[in-house]
């Protein structure tokens, strides 16, 4: 699936949830059911700076594609990082760098998160793109 196909799938999941508490429920469930990281990866170096919650993200480069893992100590931030990992994982650095993450606005995440949470989400995206840029420049050099 392309990045956009995955985004569209998430948009469909949220489409019928009118009440914001139902949307939160969906995010919480994603956070709770998401793949857990190895404890050894939950180290300060993998923490995203700028998040009020603790959010760890790792990235691995295999066969030209980037594979992310992410987890948080809170369920809501955890759900957000799970969605980002779901959308961006398994794609080439170029695809990730050029991606337009329109699902965030479509499901209303940005407007319904508190400013601190919203900044935290932007910090996660920034870090994930930075990994892609780093892998790309490594590959080219």
């Amino acid at each position, binding site marked *: 699936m392309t990045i956009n196909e995955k985004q569209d799938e998430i948009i469909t999941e949220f489409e019928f949830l009118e009440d*914001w*508490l139902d949307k*939160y*429920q969906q995010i*919480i469930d994603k956070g*709770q059911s998401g793949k857990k990281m190895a404890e050894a990866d939950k180290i300060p170096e993998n923490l995203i700076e700028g998040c*009020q*919650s603790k959010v760890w993200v790792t990235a691995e480069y295999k066969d030209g594609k980037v594979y992310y893992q992410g987890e948080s*100590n*809170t*369920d*809501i*931030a955890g759900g957000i990082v799970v969605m980002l990992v779901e959308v961006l994982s398994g794609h080439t650095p170029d695809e990730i760098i050029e991606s337009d993450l329109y699902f965030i606005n479509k499901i209303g995440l940005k407007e319904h998160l*508190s400013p601190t*949470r919203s900044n935290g989400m932007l910090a996660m995206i920034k870090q994930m793109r930075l990994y892609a840029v780093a892998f790309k420049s490594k590959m080219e050099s």
Partner: protein
Amino acid sequence: MGLDINKIRQDFPILTKEIYKKPLVYLDNAATTQKPLCVIEKITEGYCNCNANIHRGVHFLSQMATEAHEAARENVRSFINAASAREVIFTRGTTEAINLVASSFGDSQCSEGDEIIISQMEHHSNIVPWQLLQSRKGTTLKVIPFDENGILKVEELEKMITPKTKLVSVTHASNTLATVNPIKEIIRIAHAHDVPVLVDGAQSIPHFSVDVQDLDVDFYVFSGHKVYGPTGIGVLYGKERWLDAIPPYQGGGEMIKKVTFEKTTFNELPFKFEAGTPDYIGSTALSAALDYVKGIGLENISKHEHELLEYARTRMAEIEGMRFIGNSPQRSGLVSFLVGDIHPYDMGSILDKLGIAVRTGHHCAEPVMQAFGIEGTVRASFAMYNTKEEIDTLVAGIERARKMFHH
């Protein structure tokens, strides 16, 4: 005779606000209280009718503003029963007041190896200024511990005081544990060793009456915005002999008697500590807030808030997985809690969507969190305008969140 809460609520315009189309339930009063109309009007009136820089001005408006500012000082004096208005210094708030003492008292009275004693339940604003003093003067910081219920082990204080102890600086009421400390006892112990005491009254002044002479406290500090007044104004009370003995905090206008390039002589109390143009709009609005509180009656407020707190604890205790952080029988104003392993930020986010404003996190008291081995708590804190119905809404909100997080 209970308070007419509905009538009181009408005095606070913000309380009719809807948040996400739900009626606002404001339970973050330990962070800041909402303002009654009389305070808001006082600010507007100040700027509309009475705005001119105070002191030194010979013109009418300046004199009028000066009188209002000094009348506010007198009102604060009477509110805390200080012996003289010279002992009332306006600051920007509790934090600035503690920094003032740490700087003026600390720098002049402390030298290397001297000790400051604080408690384990202090807000960062009563920790960090002393650590800065430590880095300037080489003082050390000693900490009175609390037990598993959040009760201060006052008996330890006696053993901790040495000839090197220069000041005991403790909070009257904890902003995270709700504990009300036996301040009189602490002062008695410290004074028996000739050690002065600073008390952080940020969480006590809004909730119960404080008489600085009866306490025999040396320094008492509080913030205006936590007692229904505006932000940016606070109070340092200090015994006159201490304020006379210590040097000015900041330099500038207002605080001087005579300036030449060779030498400057400082003004007398209280102006010596008020460099620059004072917040005379803030002071007069704070005075209006104190009048409002007096009008309702601090005893009535205490009683009402105590009932709310006990009702909240009883109702909340029925929630599965509920854990209270802080169980001192002497408590005031707030309840700090966790439910199962739901993270405080997650709980706070759901409550927010239900229109309920609570505080989440470490509440600027990280050592308290470390003592309990937790990252933070959810804190619901009360004011005179809160109702039992609002607590019912909070309890229903917590229950709903608990289910959402599958606990």
